[in-house]
């Protein structure tokens, strides 16, 4: 797609003027810094409703390449729904999702990992009856062979095993390859989820509360792991997180979501000092901040 043509006419790919575009004009976006056509990940007026309830309300978000962005907000603010809408797990009611300047809104959920967008889950979603190694290996296999492959004549053990072992090493599960996923400790299951997301070979990684339920020690280790992923693998990371120490210490910028709307985006110190965020939306989190 051509950036200049879009900029000149102000229309989307299909040539129709989008509502989202117009709304962005009339309503200043809380995240105006990033142009969706150049950002690693961007949403434009993303909205998702469930009946009468608007879970995600016209969120326009732009995450730069290599950025580590945290998304915070009280429970029920719509953070996970935002992830689900970005990933295509839930189709958006309205708005667009851009990955690396490309409009991926209409792409199927299973296509997005192959375009460089991957996620981990808030609850431990795993292939529970399979070994730790197989959990990661089957994702490596998918990343290499594509969303569907009639790969019938090989032994599965010859596809992606080394890469899977490498990834287990990266997240610190290299000692447990043949343990069944369901028998891992909670913290190890969360790490396995990150390893599986990494196995898709992503450019943008969405992590949904990667440290939830972890001990302080494990939380620090996971925070270090996330920084490592960003610094050494050069990924763009978007993080939903409740632990404010983690958020403040590792994120480049923080976006605050409340009742589905994005109310502020900025570097940690700016968000900490933001009165609107303090007074209206972070209530219970004030002490932590």
């Amino acid at each position, binding site marked *: 797609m051509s950036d200049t043509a879009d900029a000149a006419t102000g229309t989307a790919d299909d040539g129709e003027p989008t509502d989202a575009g117009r709304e962005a004009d009339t309503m200043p976006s809380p995240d105006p810094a990033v142009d969706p056509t150049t950002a690693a990940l961007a949403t434009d007026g993303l909205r998702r409703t469930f009946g009468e309830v608007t879970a995600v309300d016209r969120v326009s978000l732009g995450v730069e390449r290599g950025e580590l962005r945290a998304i915070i907000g009280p429970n029920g603010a719509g953070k996970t729904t935002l992830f689900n809408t970005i990933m295509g797990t839930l189709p958006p009611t309205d708005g667009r999702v851009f990955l690396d300047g490309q409009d991926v809104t209409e792409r199927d959920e299973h296509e997005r990992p192959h375009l460089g967008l991957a996620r981990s889950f808030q609850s431990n979603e795993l292939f529970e009856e*399979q070994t730790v190694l197989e959990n990661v290996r089957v994702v490596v296999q998918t990343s290499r062979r594509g969303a*569907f492959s009639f790969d019938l004549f090989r032994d599965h053990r010859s596809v992606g095993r080394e890469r899977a072992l490498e990834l287990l090493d990266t997240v610190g599960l290299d000692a447990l390859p043949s343990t069944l996923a369901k028998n891992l400790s909670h913290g190890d299951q969360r790490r396995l989820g990150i390893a599986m997301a990494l196995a898709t070979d992503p450019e943008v990684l969405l992590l949904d509360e990667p440290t939830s339920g972890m001990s302080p020690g494990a939380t620090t280790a996971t925070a270090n792991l996330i920084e490592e992923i960003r610094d050494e693998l050069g990924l763009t990371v978007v993080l939903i997180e409740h632990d404010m120490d983690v958020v403040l210490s590792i994120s480049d910028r923080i976006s605050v979501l409340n009742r589905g709307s994005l109310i502020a985006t900025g570097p940690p110190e700016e968000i900490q000092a933001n009165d609107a965020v303090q007074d209206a939306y972070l209530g219970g989190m004030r002490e932590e901040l």
Partner: protein
Amino acid sequence: MSGETATGEGPTEALDRARSLLLRYRVPVGLVLVVLLLRPVISHPLLLGYEAVAATILIWMVFVAAFNLLFGYAGLLSFGHAMFLGFGMYAAAIGVSGRAGAPELPFPVAAAVGIAVAATVGYLLGRLTVEKGEIYFAFLTLAVAQAVEFTANRNPLNLTGGSNGVTQNVLPGFVESTRGQLVVVFTGLEIDWYWFVSAVFLVAMLALWQIVRSPFGRSLVAIRENGDLARAMGINTTRYKVQAFTISAAFSALAGSVLMIDRYGASQETLSVITSGDTVLMAVLGGVRYFFGPVAGVFVWQFTEEFLNEFEVLHLGFTSVDLSGVLTHWQFFLGALFVVLVVVAPLEGIWGYLRDWVRDLYVRVKGVAE
């Protein structure tokens, strides 16, 4: 590898290598053992005392294993799998007999037509149903299978023979029936029907085994375990399920075409919901999580059916008890066994129990030896 051997490999390493090789190829080895042992075991005087059902049992093993590719591996419970067995059976019977003006076809061609029809129906039905959710999938497959049975019963163009089925002139040229025994005549050689079926069994089962151990098969397992996660990790779950359905249907039809010869024709009762139900029960009885589950399930089911039907008088030395009246209700006893198994361990089945038992025994024997 050869270098290692040259530099002097201890006997323990050689033994370890042999063991890991055996472990890796335990399924092919096991399949050969099934073929070699099934007939002598069941024809033992204390068991059945005759061998005719051995070939039938092997064919059923292929069919239930094909069903289990869909159920045990891809997690899709089809309640209408009898139709795919039926497509193979009827296509072979109609093709070979050339009845009602149908072109007379050599058996392999007729069987291939049946497999193609089954695969096509499986594919199209899969496209419509695999994403509908478990209950809907089960009911939709059941409904379509009922429609197929109804159609066969109506005898369209006089092809399917209605409730009589197709039983005239159904033996292909290379199969002869002498004194109720089937013999395959191939370039002047006479081959026992059992060995012919064994060859089909080995080829089909090895193919199914290769499918479940391939990357394709592992994707099916991932989808069964957690479809939402599989999709989020980039697996096109719909396409995998549709293809699993197609492959399962094709192998079922293959079993059906051979079963046609074994049963001397295509019968309408094969298409019935009872056949579909038995298929599910046999798979669950054997253990759906294991490749050998269907093999064990079919063996126990078919053998018990035959054994209890034949069993008449229990001799206890001093007295004899006539049990024939009770034991004709063999379904009752199998049903009881089934209920116990499902309550205790629904996914393990007989094969799962056998595995655990053998493993425990091995550990114990090893402990004693050391």
